[in-house]
């Protein structure tokens, strides 16, 4: 064979090898700002690797149902899943996810906050890498506080929050002292209610997994929640989730709002918020304890065990959750838009600290949220605004409906909690936790 022919064959073989190694991966993700940014920037990874990506973008609850069905039946439809810190350890223990411990040294696992890594691990193995993380804290209107001669403490109590809300409510101007989630759902009203109950000294279960929903702290917490929102909340509160409250706060109808830290970037965005220059923020309120008063959540990326393109999928994860990716977002979209709450290097970056005045408070909130010690007294579970057991989605949603019914005035708080206790007990018995 002549040399030119040999060269041509070699070139063809190399090209064929290149084509063979290029893969098309399918990513299931949620529709939020950070994920959309990832989708837009992912062409850089495609160019670097020759791989291509099919995106399946769904609403959070639809996505959760969709990927749960797929992974439980080993459907193999997706190569990368966007899942939360609730599902990751449960699915990891089931053997449904691949471990993600083998990324190159440049990935620098130790740069990821330890609390975030722990939340995405089970039995010491990392099953998902964090895309962003959030806690909860208190947003308030500095202008209204100044006008009323009030001062927001660095660590407010629930009593103080109620006093401020009473003073700042002026329903004739559609100005409400407090906006809180009221829409039923384990990720909706129960996200806030769980932190409230934790702060009042309550817990979901005792050390033997007996539900404690009729205990004094639960009753005190839910009475506080219902009475506060009746006095100082906006109308139609049982229909309000994160987005509705964001809209109310952004258009100047709420003096205070306790919700996800990820909202900070949205209420500070002058193009979307009418109160961007009037917003202050402080820690989530506490009661008899500070344990579990600010929640912890992380959207993370995982590779299902059923994926046939695990290498390409892991390569994408290593890119999309790296320090370089954070830098790329900052330089492309502006530093307020970088995925928050995951890496120390993000908070060491002067560009980010300068652009995001809320950065230090968010970091403190995330680092303070300890999912392993969520309550005043010891509990057999982890998770602050959820209990990391598979049954919790059903339990949380059902209890959320009873709490929403009490808020709507359809039943008393005592009745709602009695029914919630009975339903939870029944589920725990059926699942074999208790007799």
């Amino acid at each position: 064979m002549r040399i030119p022919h040999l060269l041509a064959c070699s070139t063809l073989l190399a090209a064929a090898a290149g084509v063979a190694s290029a893969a098309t991966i399918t990513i299931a993700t949620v529709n939020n700002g950070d994920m959309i940014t990832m989708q837009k920037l992912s062409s850089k990874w495609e160019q670097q690797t020759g791989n291509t990506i099919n995106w399946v973008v769904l609403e959070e609850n639809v996505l959760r149902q969709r990927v749960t069905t797929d992974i439980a039946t080993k459907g193999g439809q997706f190569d990368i899943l966007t899942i939360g810190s609730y599902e990751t350890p449960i699915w990891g223990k089931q053997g449904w996810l691949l471990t993600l411990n083998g990324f190159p040294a440049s990935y620098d696992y130790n740069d990821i906050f330890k609390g975030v890594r722990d939340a995405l691990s089970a039995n010491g193995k990392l099953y998902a890498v964090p895309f962003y993380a959030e806690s909860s804290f208190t947003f308030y209107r500095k202008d209204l506080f100044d006008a009323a001669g009030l001062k927001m403490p660095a660590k407010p109590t629930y009593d103080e929050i109620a006093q401020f809300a009473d003073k700042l409510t002026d329903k004739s101007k559609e100005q409400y002292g407090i906006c809180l989630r009221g829409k039923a759902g384990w990720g909706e009203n129960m996200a806030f209610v769980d932190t409230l109950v934790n702060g009042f000294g309550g817990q979901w279960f005792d050390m033997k997994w007996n539900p404690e929903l009729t205990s004094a702290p639960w009753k005190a917490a839910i009475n506080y929640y219902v009475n506060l929102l009746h006095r100082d909340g906006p109308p139609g509160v049982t229909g309000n989730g994160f987005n509705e409250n964001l809209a109310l706060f952004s258009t100047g109808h709420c003096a205070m709002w306790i919700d996800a830290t990820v909202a900070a970037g949205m209420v500070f965005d002058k193009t979307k918020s009418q109160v961007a220059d009037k917003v202050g923020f402080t820690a989530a309120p506490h009661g008899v304890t500070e344990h579990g008063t600010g929640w912890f959540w992380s959207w993370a990326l995982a590779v299902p065990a059923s994926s046939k393109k695990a290498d390409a999928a892991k390569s994408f994860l290593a890119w999309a959750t790296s320090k370089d990716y954070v830098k790329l977002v900052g330089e492309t979209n502006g530093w307020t838009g970088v995925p928050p709450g995951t890496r120390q290097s993000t908070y060491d970056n002067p560009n980010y600290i300068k652009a995001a005045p809320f950065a230090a408070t968010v970091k403190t909130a995330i680092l303070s949220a300890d999912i392993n010690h969520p309550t005043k007294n010891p509990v057999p579970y982890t998770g602050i605004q959820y209990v990391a057991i598979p049954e919790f989605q059903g339990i949380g949603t059902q209890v959320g409906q009873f709490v929403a019914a009490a808020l709507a005035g359809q039943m008393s708080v005592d009745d709602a909690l009695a029914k919630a206790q009975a339903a939870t007990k029944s589920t725990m018995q059926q699942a074999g936790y208790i007799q």
Partner: protein
Amino acid sequence: MTRHSKSHRVAGALAWIAALAMFFPIAWMFAASFKTEVEAIATPPLFVFTPTLENYREVFARADYLGFALNSVVISLGATLAALALAIPAAFAMALYPTKRTRGTLLWMLSTKMLPPVGVLVPIYLIARETALLDTRTGLIIMFALSNLPIVVWMLFTFFKETPKDIIEASRIDGASVLQVITVVLLPLVTPGIASTALLSIILCWNEAFWSLNLSAHDAAPLTAFIASFSAPEGLFWAKLSAASTMAIAPILVLGWASQRQLVRGLTFGAVK
């Protein structure tokens, strides 16, 4: 004014009110698609605003609308044709040659629509996985055809029953086979009924969300999946969701308007005798 014309006017006014009430959500969605995200969630709601095409630009940039729309067209038409192919002979037999069990069979068919789809999600998902029909148009065509089959059979059964039996019997006496009776005699008589059944089936397929979201991922995802991708738990999305929804319903809305005469004729076929 006579009493008759007065009651006509009242009925006309009520019809207009009902029509406007039904159309209002669509009109509001259409208007919201031209607002900014802040305007879309403003309280009190904004009726006067400067329209923007930004949402449409964003929606086009983020998702392959034409790919989703093509899937919707292929799946809706395919499922409707498959359902008609199965339902026409079934309805023919039950309408013109009923047995003691016909009524029970019809009720049983309809009862399958009363089952919440989520109750059979896992078995159907497993069947689709085992037969390699996950995320394929064929899989969704089969699923939609089967799920709409009871309604299609019922509608066709009603139309076929209105056909004069004498004509069918005469053609049988003249020596026509069953297939000839259906294709040459029956189908021309009930064309308006079949057309309106087909239109209803297309609309049902076009709007079906549960199975299309659960059995498709990327390759076969229709417009319902396209809409779902613009809903968000954290962040403002009403304006973009409205733009996506407007784009998703536009083809079926146009089809409905274009064929409304045929649709009404079919739906009232045999109503007055």
